[in-house]
């Protein structure tokens, strides 16, 4: 391989301006974390709610939940990004549409966080539904028999158990959020992938650039993984062995 290695490139100034390439990557990492964590909070909130709705006795709620999941699950994330950015604002009422297009602060960031959040919420909803479904029907009966309302039964009895069960798949989703956030570069969020492309073109040191970015993504996802493992250990219930039926 005839390549001129230069690991010092990160500390060199960019061609136009007084920042270093490292500054670019740090900015990128900041936006990656911002998009990912915002999307994750959105995804968890909506995903748990929609997943729970899909297990209620109401056919209407189950139907709405199913539509939600299928809508976000069956369209590529990249296309969804473009839809939210270019298409959705056109369908808003006129005043809103103008505001979104011209005045909304951090437009790219907000769009990316909503898009990734809703996309991920559909996946979480599916896992939460499966988690609730794996509990014995008698748990719901027992909660209701004590006089709890259905929402109380979910809040106190069903979801605390279902969420513990789905921590392993949720861990993968949390890691996916960081990795999927790279798609946000397509609508101009200055996140890690965007900055990497910019650095590669500016510095012509593509290999160092992408190796560094790979390492940063790896650290994000791996930290997410360890964080979830910590939560899993913290919430473990003594003596709980999964019972079927």
């Amino acid at each position, binding site marked *: 391989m005839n390549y001129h290695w230069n690991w010092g490139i990160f500390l060199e100034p960019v061609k136009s301006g007084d920042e270093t390439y490292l500054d670019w990557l740090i900015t990128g990492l900041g936006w990656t974390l911002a998009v990912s964590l915002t999307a994750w909070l959105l995804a968890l909130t909506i995903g748990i709610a929609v997943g729970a709705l899909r297990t209620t006795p109401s056919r209407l709620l189950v139907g709405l939940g199913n539509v939600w999941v299928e809508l976000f699950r069956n369209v590529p994330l990249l296309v969804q990004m473009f839809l939210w950015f270019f298409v959705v604002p056109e369908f808003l009422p006129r005043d809103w549409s103008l505001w979104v297009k011209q005045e909304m602060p951090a437009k790219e960031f907000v769009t990316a966080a909503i898009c990734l959040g809703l996309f991920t919420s559909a996946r979480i909803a599916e896992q939460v539904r499966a988690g609730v479904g794996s509990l014995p029907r008698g748990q719901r009966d027992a909660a209701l*028999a004590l*006089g709890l309302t259905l929402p109380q039964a979910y809040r106190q009895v069903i979801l605390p158990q279902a969420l513990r069960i789905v921590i392993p798949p949720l861990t993968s989703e949390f890691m996916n959020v960081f990795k999927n956030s790279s798609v946000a570069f397509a609508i101009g969020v200055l996140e890690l992938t965007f900055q990497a492309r910019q650095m590669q073109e500016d510095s012509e040191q593509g290999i160092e650039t992408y190796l560094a970015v790979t390492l940063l993504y790896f650290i994000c996802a791996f930290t997410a993984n360890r964080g979830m493992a910590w939560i899993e250990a913290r919430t473990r219930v003594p003596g*709980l062995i999964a*019972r079927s039926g």
Partner: protein
Amino acid sequence: MIEIRNVSKWYGHTQVLANASTHVAKGEVVVVCGPSGSGKSTLIKCVNGLEAFTQGTITVDGISVGDPKTDLPKLRARVGMVFQHFELFPHMNVLQNLALAQVKVLGRSQEEAATRGEALLDRVGLRAHAAKFPGQLSGGQQQRVAIARALAMDPICMLFDEPTSALDPEMIGEVLDVMVELAQEGMTMMCVTHEMGFARRVARRVVFMDHGEIVEDAPTGAFFDAPASARAKAFLSRILHH
């Protein structure tokens, strides 16, 4: 206390309850028995509205269970229920299991709920296990906690849905002892069970079901000594000779 009148239930085209009528008076213990699939669990779950029924009426303390205007959570809070598989909440310790509905449904304070819970744990002989989780207890202990959990709501009557069927034989006695004591104190009880010894000791009447029908509803002595129907005779000879 519990009035069941002409109750029928279908799942699609399958009839699981056929015109069932019976009652449990205040302070009475009624045992419901019958072969598996006879509809006895379905019937008892209709009493507190965990299962809907298609026709007929059920009233508990004068309140109609099937009436859409009835506040079911409020009614259920007054009717204790014990399940075959205990259904303790595995993510809460024993005392939390006893306190949850007291606090969330009855509005008692945590301290009140804990005091009441501990008193009932004492009564079922499990005071020392208050801080344990259900998964750390034996089946018999879990079922005793489940009974205490129901009693913590100060119910006006108790429903038991095969409370000993999931237990190892050596643990059945400890659960039945608690139930017998409860019956002797005058608790109104409707018990789906195959424990015929229990029935003989404390039941006022025995209701025998088969294929969703109440085939026999007789005073306990009469039921065991001279069952009227061939189906009840066959059932008794099968389970008593085991």
